[in-house]
């Protein structure tokens, strides 16, 4: 049971964090950081399996590879942004966390530009404009 393992790691991390905070050192933040890294590393293998499934389904439905690749990239950017923003927010820097989220949104939009242009062009093809 992987989930019991991960929840245990989270609880241990919070206990150690509280202990270190009492001592008044800056190591508590590093404990939080390494705990989130461990949990993400454990989860990311399963995410890879799910992505293989999505790829397989896309090939069966003969969807163009570009679209699925773009979607997976967007999900990856969202994950990385989430990690960074959460860690910064835990450290108490709400402003920086908001900026990181803004950067993530902008990069997602930039990656989605080819899809958006394709959609708009196909819509324009439907319209009877000279």
């Amino acid at each position, binding site marked *: 049971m992987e989930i019991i393992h991960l929840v*245990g*790691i989270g609880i*241990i*991390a919070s206990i*150690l964090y509280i*202990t*270190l905070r009492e*001592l*008044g*050192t*800056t*190591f*508590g933040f*590093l*404990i939080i*950081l*390494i*705990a989130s*890294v*461990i949990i*993400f*590393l*454990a989860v*990311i293998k399963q*995410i*890879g399996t799910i*992505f293989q499934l999505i*790829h397989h389904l896309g090939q069966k439905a003969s969807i163009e*590879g*570009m679209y*699925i*690749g773009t979607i*997976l*990239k967007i*999900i*990856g*950017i969202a*994950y*990385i942004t989430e*990690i960074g923003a959460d860690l910064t927010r835990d450290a108490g820097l709400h402003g920086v966390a908001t900026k990181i989220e803004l950067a993530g949104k902008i990069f997602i939009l930039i990656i989605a530009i080819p899809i958006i242009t394709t959609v708009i062009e196909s819509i324009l093809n439907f319209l009877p404009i000279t």
Partner: protein
Amino acid sequence: MILDATILFQIAGIGIIVAIIHTILKQMGKEEIAQFATLVGFIIVLAIVIHGLSDLFQEIKSIFLFQG
């Protein structure tokens, strides 16, 4: 690859030891050496943490970004 709680205990142990060293050196009246010890402990832990973080980023890159 780290998938253990060992590294958590390692970091917490280093943190507690460094805090004790800091307190003892402060009591002995050697403020500068105490600050220096804290800095060195922080750098050691930071090396461990950055190693794990780079592992995570490599994994995310290989799964999400460079596929297809």
